[in-house]
């Protein structure tokens, strides 16, 4: 580990390449660069998640912490780690104070692994417009996590308005186990869906996305029923035409932390895997696919009534925004 106080971007690049040489073989086969944008108090959480994700997909992790944008003197402190607490790959933690935080890309650009994809992940609230953050503009894939926003549903709508292919949100990754079980339960079921509902915690963005996905696929409106508790709690679906004329009901409800009960008319209840993914697992799932996710684009578009978003242009242009000016006005 190399720690550099009050340093420059060039010194960080040199420290990283020295550390690579010293480490010998461990730093081979990088497949991507993961840029993590975090606040100081989120760093520990972000490090944990990044180490899980980078052990599944060896990557260079660059954690960018911006603090005290209004500090008088810009300053950069850095920590270079290879094969340490941040997983088997290479990682650099960059702490930027003062106006440097607004030009973080000047430090990050020379540190990106050459000619491989860049993924930017905002641990906390993403910028309203991703184009405001140059670290989002330079990324091929952008991962946000709006579940902890002050008003998650408003944040979801903002994600839809600001969407460009390559964006995903962890709220969508959290629906994957539910969607997998549900798609499996639908195999070989005769009939057409007539109505369905999703039960979720009030303001659950995952619940909303799941309902929109289901509604979009089945061509019906799927309401979200609010119930106190954690995340998505249950799905119920009715189909006509199956089981004689009586129709079929498919229901999936969470029981416990790792499993759910699947019931289908005419069949015994089954226990299915329905794990709660922690942050690291969710991030690893995002890194598995570096192309855009049109299924998410469709569900997100439906949630904000904006139609299919998959055809929007892929790239963004940086829009300069100075927080100092904004607070002054």
């Amino acid at each position, binding site marked *: 580990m190399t720690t550099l106080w009050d340093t420059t971007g060039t010194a960080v690049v040199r420290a990283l390449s020295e550390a690579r040489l010293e480490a010998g073989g461990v730093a*081979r086969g990088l497949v991507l660069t993961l840029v993590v944008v975090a606040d100081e108090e989120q760093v520990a959480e972000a490090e944990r998640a990044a180490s899980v994700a980078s052990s*599944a997909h060896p990557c260079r992790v660059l954690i960018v912490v911006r603090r005290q944008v209004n500090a008088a003197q810009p300053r950069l402190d850095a920590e270079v780690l290879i094969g340490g607490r941040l997983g088997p790959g290479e990682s650099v933690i960059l702490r930027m104070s003062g106006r440097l935080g607004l030009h973080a890309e000047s430090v990050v650009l020379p540190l990106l692994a050459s000619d491989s994809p860049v993924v930017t992940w905002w641990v906390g609230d993403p910028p309203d417009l991703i184009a405001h953050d140059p670290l989002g503009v330079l990324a091929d894939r952008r991962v946000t996590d709006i579940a902890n926003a002050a008003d998650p549903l408003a944040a979801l709508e903002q994600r839809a308005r600001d969407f460009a292919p390559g964006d995903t949100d962890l709220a969508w990754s959290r629906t*994957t186990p539910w969607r997998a079980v*549900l798609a499996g339960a639908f*195999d070989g079921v005769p009939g*057409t869906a007539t109505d369905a509902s999703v039960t979720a915690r009030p303001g659950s963005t995952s619940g909303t996305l799941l309902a929109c996905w289901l509604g979009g696929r089945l*061509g019906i409106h799927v309401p979200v029923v609010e119930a106190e508790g954690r995340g998505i709690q249950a799905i119920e679906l009715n189909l006509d035409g199956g089981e004689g004329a009586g129709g079929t009901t498919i229901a999936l409800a969470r029981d416990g932390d790792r499993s759910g009960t699947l019931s289908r008319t005419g069949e015994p209840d089954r226990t*299915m895997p329905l794990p709660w993914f922690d942050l690291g697992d969710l991030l*690893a799932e995002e890194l598995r696919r570096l192309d855009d996710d049109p299924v998410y684009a469709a569900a997100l578009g439906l949630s904000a009534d904006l139609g299919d978003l998959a055809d929007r242009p892929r790239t963004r242009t940086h829009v300069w925004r100075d927080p100092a000016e904004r607070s002054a006005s």
Partner: protein
Amino acid sequence: MVAEPRAAATNPLRDPRDRRLPRVPDPCALVVFGVTGDLARKKLIPAIYDLGNRGLLPPGFALLGFARRDWDHGDFEELAMEAAKAHCRTPWRPEAWQRISEAVRFVPGSFDDDEAFDTLAQTLIDLEASHGIGGNTAFYLSIPPAMFPVVLKQMERTGMADNHVSGGWRRVVVEKPFGHDLASSRELNHLVDSVFTAKDVFRIDHYLGKETIQNLLALRFANTLFEPIWNAHYVDSVQITMAEDVGIAGRAGFYDSAGAARDVLQNHLLQLLALTAMEEPVAFDADALRIEKSKVLDAISLPTDLDRYAIRGRYEQGWLAGERVHGYLDESGIPKTSTTESYAAVRLGVETRRWAGVPFYLRTGKRLPRRVTEIAVSFAKAPHLPFAVTDTTELGNNQLVIRVQPDEGVTLRFGSKVPGSAMEVRDVSMDFSYGAAFTEGSPEAYERLILDVLLGDATLFPRNEEVEASWRVVDPLEAFWAGKQPHAYRAGEWGPRAADDMLAADGRSWRRP
């Protein structure tokens, strides 16, 4: 918007672009014959647990064991749990096993017992109602081939193997050996195909389930870099090695009747050769792959001088990995008069425009220094070197090595200048390691193959034409070797001297893996 009417088979929730959702098979049951055997305990049951743990088993899934034991479901479930716990790849989670154990059944009986098979058929029907397995069943024959006829006849008698009677799909999984020569394999194929339809028969060659083998196809057909030089103009020779450090412990009876050529060369090595040498398939599916592999296997030629180019060996006592080990003839269960080989090496040709004149050296053996499987493609030397002769003495052939196991990956060897004031060129190796680029756990071969059987995807399974074509290669070798004594090699050596001489005669040498 109103949903369009659709056939029952299409699932509106599935979208090929939605790659987050896993491929999950139809509701089905898996029946394992010989469930108390080693393979079932060490590979099959753990693989099923791992599939379940990864959420890849359908909601309606049942596991049935059939064996001659006086057990009930509980005893079997206990054994299965122990086996899964001891050998699983993914973390052990009791609740994941709980989901599988809800649908574990055991049917006791011997293979000639009509009543036991009636019970089995009835159990499947019952499970259809109670567990929603929908008439779909895969039968895994983890039993000696001698038992196949009687088991298959029982399935025929009870109608278990019939797609129409069951109203779903019925598939059968067969392990090697697929016969012991062309005639017996034809007989076996005929027997299995008469009970099941040919497309429902899955012959497992677990090497083909390995990630690196699938990566060989990606390497060849997804890149522009290698295919232009993948031919006799640039390739000097190919070496395919499958070495094992273990002896024949526990398999003496079977092994002594088969030998290295039948046990490994006929199936694994020839399949690896076929994948290395085949033309590009028109699609990545079972039929297209089978067509290309069959073409290569049919084009294989044997050397005329078998004395020099078909070598077999047998290990004597020696030291391996710091331990003293017995010779082959001293292993328990091996008759002193045995002439079976524990090592086989052969030079084959592939008579196509692409490969004419390129030797394919295949070797396999037991009690070799380490366990390793690899395909090494050696390229021709540069036609002209502008350097002084002394500058390039340490430069060998460029090589592309596909490491199948262990340390799965690809090595590329090429010449590079040694730093310093003199021009000196030496070989360096560039390594791509699966472990480093994608540490996301590679599934076990059996996990992948069982999933493919349940999904009905036969891409990674050899078809009977391939098995028969392979026997056409091995039969003449066996006929040539019959009655002769194998060459001796010391346990812990890379095979007999005669095998080294075979390459030396061509001006080459074996690669040390």
